[in-house]
């Protein structure tokens, strides 16, 4: 039996230090970026060249390849944020609040894009840009929540201090989002007979599924890459704030 004299640092502890986190994760950035670009190229090729039009929706089905990944990310990113919030409050991981902050604008943008592409899809298929359909409406509310969180971050003078408070709010939001989703569904079905847009949708043939999944992967990797990069930037920004404040004391008379 051997006893390790120096306890081996787990990756969890290693990335707990901002500098080490950057050092540990920086090598991932380029491969991620390249892979993302490749996937996008492939996805676009599949989406435009190599896939047929849908028998019902015609060519507009191609909007789906950007709409659905964005819609998925809009929810996934909130999950990332909620998990980071837990990390901030419960495990007190120093990188968790950086992750939480970096994710918010990304999530907001993906949500906005889901709405945008959905609206452009709605016009040719239902003849309107916007319908108060349950799913669309709850996506809109999600966008408001994202924007509220961003406004909250920006409103704090001191980002380090803001983190745990924003985390509390993010978690409250995470509990509330299912309630919102349920109530919005209830609301729109109460007033409207079956929506034009059925939840299950038509069963999709593989020729549609393939580009969908590739785009899916591409957008997810895009998120991961951007998330990592903004985390690095955020770490540097905090270092700047610290240095500036250090100057504050060094110079007092």
């Amino acid at each position: 039996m051997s006893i390790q004299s120096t306890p081996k640092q787990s990756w969890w502890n290693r990335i707990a230090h901002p500098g080490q986190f950057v050092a540990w994760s920086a090598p991932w950035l380029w491969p991620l970026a390249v892979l993302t670009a490749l996937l996008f190229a492939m996805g676009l090729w599949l989406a435009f060249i190599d896939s047929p039009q849908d028998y019902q929706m015609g060519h507009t089905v191609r909007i789906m390849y950007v709409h659905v990944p964005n819609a998925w990310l809009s929810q996934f990113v909130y999950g990332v944020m909620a998990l980071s919030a837990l990390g901030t409050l419960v495990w007190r991981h120093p990188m968790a609040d950086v992750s939480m902050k970096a994710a918010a604008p990304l999530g907001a943008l993906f949500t906005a894009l889901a709405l945008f592409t959905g609206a452009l899809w709605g016009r040719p298929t239902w003849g309107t840009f916007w319908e108060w359909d349950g799913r669309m409406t709850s996506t809109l509310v999600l966008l408001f929540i994202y924007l509220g969180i961003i406004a909250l971050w920006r409103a704090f003078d001191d980002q380090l201090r803001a983190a745990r408070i924003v985390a509390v709010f993010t978690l409250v939001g995470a509990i509330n989002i299912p309630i919102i989703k349920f109530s919005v569904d209830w609301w729109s079905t109460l007033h409207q007979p079956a929506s034009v847009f059925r939840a299950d949708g038509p069963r999709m043939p593989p020729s549609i599924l393939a580009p969908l999944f590739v785009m899916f992967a591409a957008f997810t990797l895009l998120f991961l890459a951007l998330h990592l990069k903004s985390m690095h930037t955020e770490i540097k920004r905090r270092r700047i704030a610290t240095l500036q404040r250090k100057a504050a004391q060094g110079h007092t008379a």
Partner: protein
Amino acid sequence: MIELGPHAAFIIWAYLGVALAVAGLVGWTLLDARRTARKLALLETRRARK
């Protein structure tokens, strides 16, 4: 150029919008990273000088 049917405009706008937004996001992320890095470097050297 491939056929996109009667609703080509919507498809193109959708992809264009997404492309612009993603490009903007990537650009802004990189710009922000560069700006922050430069500012940090400036501060570090200023500190080192003292």
